[in-house]
């Protein structure tokens, strides 16, 4: 399905209203509001392991400036962060630490696996005795960004994809069904 016009692109961009059949209007609108807020204010944890961390820094810097999308406030403490960008490889000694960091983040939390190492082990897939073959062996990952290291534009695209993903969430309906 190709996107031909700007209008169609925008329609694809906001699938929230399309995806609700029935249900109460108030909760739907509330859902849309909360998702709008959440998707536009995702604060990453300052967490970098390998080369990708440098590209992550480049994304935060003047030329690429991720602050435009509301991803600005990189928090050093996991309690206040919303997202981990796993930038680099995770080894078996680091894996419990990463799991713990993920657990310390308050819900809702998101994970971006940046770079080949975090996606699959990358260059350390073969013959390495200590690298976990993909960070998704340790914590659930929302967005995968390939590349070694990915370009800053790729990470920005991942942010936009994450925004789209957050906008599809159903927070209140789930609670009602319970």
């Amino acid at each position, binding site marked *: 399905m190709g996107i031909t016009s700007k209008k169609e692109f925008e329609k694809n961009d906001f699938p929230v209203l399309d995806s609700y059949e029935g249900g109460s209007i108030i909760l739907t609108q509330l859902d849309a*509001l*909360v998702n*709008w*807020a*959440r998707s*536009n*204010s995702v604060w990453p944890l300052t967490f970098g392991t390998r080369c990708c961390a440098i590209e992550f820094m480049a994304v935060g*810097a*003047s030329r690429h*400036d991720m*602050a*435009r*999308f*509301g991803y*600005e*406030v990189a*928090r*050093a*403490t996991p*309690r*206040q962060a*919303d997202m981990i960008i796993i930038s680099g490889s995770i080894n078996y000694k680091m894996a419990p630490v990463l799991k713990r960091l993920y657990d*310390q983040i*308050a*819900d*809702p939390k998101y994970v971006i696996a940046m770079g080949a190492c975090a996606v699959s082990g990358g260059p350390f897939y073969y013959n390495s005795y200590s690298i976990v073959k993909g960070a998704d062996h340790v914590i659930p990952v929302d967005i995968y960004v390939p590349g070694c290291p990915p370009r800053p534009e790729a990470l920005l695209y991942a942010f936009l994809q994450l925004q789209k993903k957050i906008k599809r969430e159903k*927070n209140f309906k789930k609670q009602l069904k319970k």
Partner: protein
Amino acid sequence: MAFEKYDFTPITQSIHQALIENVSPLLTTIIEWTIIGVLYLLFIAVFGLFLVYAERKVCAAFQQRLGPMRVGPWGLLQTIADFIKLLMKELITPKSVDKFLYNLAPFIVIIVPFLTISVIPFAPGLQSLDFDIGIFFVTAVSSVGVIGVLLAGWASNNKYSLIGGMRSGAQIVSYELSVGMSLITMVILAGTMQVSEIVELQRGGWFLFKGHIPALIAFTVFVIAGTAETNRGPFDLAEAESELTAGFHTEYSGIKFAFFFLAEYINLFIVAAMATIVFLGGWMPFHFGDWAAFNNVMDFIPGLVWFFLKVFGIIFLIMWFKWTFPRLRIDQILTLEWKYLLPINLFNILLMATMVLLGWHW
């Protein structure tokens, strides 16, 4: 004068009259309290969020970036999105914390700006509490905030928090002195502690110009000490990110963290407002000697606008500090206070007293 037409006193008076004629005096008081409370709550929420946005834009400008752009026009809705997100975020209470104090701390911190803001005259007639000890009240109440910070540091059961809390305690207790003394210097000049009267006294010229040398010294000291008291860079040791992750609020998440965040910015506003009132004539317009035409044009601008213009000027100055200077070390901060600012202040009070006594001011 021309700007008297922007006086809010008739409006507040008419509301008061209408209420007191129709309902009992007790109910009048309750209704007025409620209105004022709601108004201040709204003001703090909206203005706090706006200051966060302003800080982001200012720092982006310093860093040759754009800052928030995508959420609303020019990213204006960014902080609202942040606020809703923080509101909806999970509140984690770690297992080993002192639960009562841990939950109490953010409220103590947020109460302080509510108390201090009550004596600030935004415009003629737009002030809820007009004590005769207004300045004294501000200095007394603003030191309550440190208790919240200390509690947060202690109750979090985290070593980073504890170090941050202790740093903050040492720092704020020290800099309270400088803030108080620089205000007292100006109180000597004014001869009163009543905030509205201090503003009224500056009708002929701002105290910064009236008191010339000692007033300038007091102003400089006040801005430095005020920056330190609000825990902002370069004095942000309590939450020094590269050393203590997030300092005293390391363990706080969601809206409790937002309280700390908001309180910091409202405190910033209060420091700027106090500097405006005491040194820059509050809502008084800028007048220049005998230039009647110029003065009339200045009078045309409402007092509320004047007040916020001055406040934003000082807030911008303090933001400028933050985004330019590296952070000090704890012993350097205390050295700065006890070895430099405090002696300068004591000397300055003497100078001001002599000057007032001999009538060497305009």
